[in-house]
């Protein structure tokens, strides 16, 4: 019974068209490419404002030599936010609930950041394995722990996003099934589960935005350490 609830995360194929392809390709219609006009329409102006604000927020604490990562991280923010929120609509598929996509972004970007740090400033990057102000006796233990935490970062990054979205969608499916089933049997309880469903949907909307932001924020923190 529980296994069939996870079926919503199977990559769906309808008439031999993988719907994940449509889910990834279609939302970009909502983001027009700016042209050389000085004043754009409201849609474009608000997207421009959001992009500029978020990029300056995320990149202000980073060394200016790391600012060349701005395009990658801010477009990834747009990508993840759009994928997450589009997945909240009924009958859509959430690509970011798949481990493959999240691990692909997390692993590749984490590895790029760590390799950049190791190549340009190896002493400084390795120095992060021993936090400042730690007692000298604890050094071996701390280095081992910090190394493990360094290598867990890409897994944690990818799995965090996957798990949050999977759990949210699963909860919504469970509560909606419960509401529908109770509607004929115990309508008052169905109203309560309906209210719960509404609150869950609000939570999921927040989680969709927050998790995308957290992904980018953590990558920017790792960049700060290594650039």
């Amino acid at each position, binding site marked *: 019974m529980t296994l069939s609830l*996870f*079926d919503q*995360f*199977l*990559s769906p194929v309808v008439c031999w068209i*993988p719907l*994940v*392809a449509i889910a*990834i*390709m279609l939302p*970009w219609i909502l*983001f027009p*490419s*700016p*042209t050389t006009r*000085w004043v754009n329409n409201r849609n474009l102006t608000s*997207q*421009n404002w959001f*992009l*500029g604000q978020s990029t300056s927020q995320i990149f202000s604490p980073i060394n200016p030599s790391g600012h060349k990562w701005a*395009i*990658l991280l*801010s*477009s*990834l923010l*747009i*990508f993840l936010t759009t994928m997450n929120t589009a997945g909240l609509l009924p009958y859509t598929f959430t*690509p970011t*609930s*798949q*481990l*493959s*996509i999240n*691990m*692909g*972004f997390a692993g*590749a970007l984490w590895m790029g950041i760590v390799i950049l740090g190791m190549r340009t400033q190896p002493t400084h990057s390795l120095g992060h394995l021993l936090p400042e102000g730690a007692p000298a006796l604890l050094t071996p233990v701390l280095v081992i722990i910090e190394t493990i935490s360094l290598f867990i970062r890409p897994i944690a990054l990818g799995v965090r996003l*996957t798990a949050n979205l*999977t759990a949210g969608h699963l909860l919504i499916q469970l509560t909606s099934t419960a509401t529908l089933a109770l509607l004929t049997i115990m309508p008052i309880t169905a109203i309560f589960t309906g209210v719960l469903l509404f609150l869950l949907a609000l939570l999921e909307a927040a989680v969709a935005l927050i998790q995308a932001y957290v992904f980018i924020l953590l990558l920017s923190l790792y960049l700060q350490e290594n650039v």
Partner: protein
Amino acid sequence: MPQLIPTPWLALLIFSWTIFTAIVLPKVLKHSFPDNPTLPSKQNLSKNKWDWSWH
């Protein structure tokens, strides 16, 4: 858990990165952030004459 089924893993990974680099990155790159317009200051009114020095 369906996310662990290995068959579409590589295809999804490559496809998402392809769409990301082919569509999202160019769209975001085209956004520009011009400086805020400033009021004209009185000091800039003293202009030097352009002297067409190559004629």
